[in-house]
């Protein structure tokens, strides 16, 4: 069964019914992160947000926009662009929805400069598992009224509620913005040197033997570093599955040295500590994870078929008991992606 409710009231009612019937359901945006977490935590029945795609409010002078969660990231980008503004997550893929990007905490390539996606979420309206419509946060660029439920919802993969509306902070478009690339055996050294020389680049990414750098700002500041030529944004590594590693940015060299032996495609955001690794087997996933953990990091399966997601998250995170209580509070009947999250939550 697949539902595509026309509005949030209908969506909430369908969730309330699912809870009453004890029928698990999987919230769905553009489907770009449908291959995440424990496979048994992804029920066959889905509930789609794609019909919830209205622009609710946009005051360019306030740099805030309120949209329904099913709006595509590209559409949001077009609307903001008409007023010389942007949301740094644009480029998440043609299918990606605003709600899906937030539910999966997918940050853009320019995170080094513009921060992770969770920093741009000001207010959220969520339909809980039992069909309550909850508003948290506020529509202003700054606010600390009450508990930060918007951050809790970011990255919760639809297991606490279905995000139905969000208010986002936008950025004014910068006068110049461009990617440059340079290839060579010393790609990592070149990248690390750029990271310490440049003042607030958009991104410095090492992908294979290529160093990619995004520069943003005044035209005078957006000029190719020595040896670099204009290029496109680096493509993501492609394999049967992709693992997302997070390590302290201080130990990226050790990580890449250790992973080098695998001989698989990967792409590393310097200064952030995120490394996407293409993998072909559960053994490779375990190996990547072991290397990450040895230097205090973690590795989660970002996108892979069911058979590669035997242990998608690694060791249970701190605070599992608190996470269980949160799940029970927001989804009392346990119908939203039950078991998808770490610890089988």
């Amino acid at each position, binding site marked *: 069964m697949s539902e595509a409710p026309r509005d949030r009231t209908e969506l909430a009612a369908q969730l309330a019914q699912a809870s009453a019937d004890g029928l698990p359901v999987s919230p769905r945006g553009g489907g770009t992160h449908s291959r995440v977490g424990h496979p048994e935590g992804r029920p066959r029945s889905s509930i789609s947000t794609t019909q919830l795609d209205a622009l609710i409010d946009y005051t360019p*002078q306030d740099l805030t926009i309120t949209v329904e969660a099913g709006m595509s990231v590209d559409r949001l980008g077009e609307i903001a662009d008409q007023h010389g503004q942007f949301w740094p997550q644009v480029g998440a893929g043609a299918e990606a929805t605003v709600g899906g990007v937030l539910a999966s905490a997918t940050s853009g390539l320019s995170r080094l400069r513009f921060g992770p996606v969770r920093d741009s979420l000001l207010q959220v309206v969520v339909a809980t598992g039992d069909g309550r419509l909850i*508003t948290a946060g506020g529509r*202003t660029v700054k606010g600390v009224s009450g508990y930060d439920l918007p951050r809790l919802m970011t990255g919760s993969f639809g297991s606490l509620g279905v995000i139905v509306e969000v208010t986002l902070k936008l950025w004014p478009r910068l006068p110049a913005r461009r990617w440059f690339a340079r290839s060579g055996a010393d790609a990592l050294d070149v990248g690390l040197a750029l990271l310490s020389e440049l003042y607030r680049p958009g991104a410095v990414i090492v992908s294979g033997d290529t160093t990619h750098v995004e520069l943003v700002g005044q035209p005078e500041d957006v000029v190719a570093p020595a040896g670099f030529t204009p290029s496109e944004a680096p493509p993501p590594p492609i394999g049967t599955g992709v693992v997302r590693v*997070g390590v302290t940015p201080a130990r990226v060299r050790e990580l890449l040295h250790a992973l080098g032996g695998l001989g698989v495609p990967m792409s590393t955001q310097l200064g952030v500590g995120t490394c996407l690794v293409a993998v072909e087997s559960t053994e490779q996933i375990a190996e990547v994870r072991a290397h990450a953990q040895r230097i205090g990091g973690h590795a989660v399966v970002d996108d892979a078929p069911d058979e590669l997601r035997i242990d998608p998250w690694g060791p249970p995170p701190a605070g599992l008991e608190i996470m269980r209580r949160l799940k029970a509070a927001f989804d009392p009947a346990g119908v939203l992606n039950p078991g998808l999250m770490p610890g089988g939550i």
Partner: protein
Amino acid sequence: MGTATATASAARFRALLDSERVMEHPLERAIYARDGSITEGKCGLVVLPQTREEVSACVRVAAELGLAIVPRGSGTGLAGGAVPFDDAVVVSLARMNRILDIDPDVPCAWVEPGVLNLDISTAVADLDLHYAPDPSSQAACSIGGNVATNSGGPHCLAYGVTAQHIMGLEMVTADGSVLELGGPAPDPPGFDLRGLSVGGEGTLGLVTKVCVRLTRNPPAVRTMLLDFDSVAEGAATVGAIVAAGVVPAAMEMMDQKMNIAVEAFVGAGLPVDAATVLLVEVDGTPAQIAAEAELVQRVGREHGAREVRVAADETERQLLWKARKSAFGAVARVAPNYYLHDCVVPRTHLVDVLEEIGAIAERHDLVIMNVFHAGDGNLHPLIAFDRRDSDQVDRVYEAGREIIAACMAVGGVLSGEHGIGVEKRDFMPLQFGEIDLAAQADARCAFDPDGLMNPLKVLPAGSRCGELTVAPDSLPPGTWL
């Protein structure tokens, strides 16, 4: 749970800490019954643990005896978040004040909660780094308190509030267990408990260690002071600068009453005949500050700026910032006490809300001074008064209510950076519905099922989750507001 009082339980805590770190003398307790707000509570006992293990042991004993705990940093909070009620145990983290590790390659630092905000920036200055959130009280407030309230500051306009600069936390929760949440490795799996904990106002746990993100010092900076004949012109300038595509590092406004008080206090050469002044700072590469400073000055003049003073050097820049950050202290020249609100309104409503605040002041025959983060619409209307005049106190409270109502009416929020504490908790229903507040109570109970961590704060009476029985309709007797 036991029925012991905190004061009578001092011996239990003395078994955990040196006796000088357990304070029960009425004078000492009186000092810890207050914070930077105007609320006064009642403190049963003060304990000053120095290690995570001591914090955990104190929490366990309190839990065993059923005693409420109120965490405290430097006590500079402006919403009463650190004020104890009903003889609660105040756990001061002021003595946990070591900078544990600085890693310039991230860059980040692990610090204990009692480290003062400004001390972090001072410690990393030679690495050309700083800690970005800069509340006016930065020389006195602690990083633990900053985490609790999700503090802001002038430079949060461009750099973001505390939550964006906290990479990880170590926290002792209500049952005494220790949680390490996050760290310099990005996006740990599971729900974002770190993100949820920042701004928890000490109701979710006691922070015993913090990993702060450090920020590179900008290669160039330019600070400008613009003055106007009307508040409307100043506010219109703020909106126009943002609309033109520039988010300055900071954009602060002070009205005439505040200018006069500050100028008498600091002597920074502020134009005291102006209706309002706007302090704007741009930073970045030389090309960026040149372009942005030119735009700020042009937009300012187009909107009626009488003069644009550009700080000639670092000394003059520091003087202008000293003027801005001395504002709260300068109020003492006007009246012995002040009551402060912290609403945020959409930038597009700055002018009408400021006019309404002026009308409220007139209606209640009160002096209201304005100094605020204009760039993000974060108002700080400050009501100067004398608490010995009970009629005036009533009017202060009523004016505060009306200010909040005016901000809410244009889509504003209750607090931008000071938190809710006890002083704003009963206003929460103005921003949130019953169902929203119940969800917040649920989140709190997930951390603290017995409700012993900083009770009576953040959420209004009646919105607590089912397991909690504390639900007084009003603040405890003796509460002074």
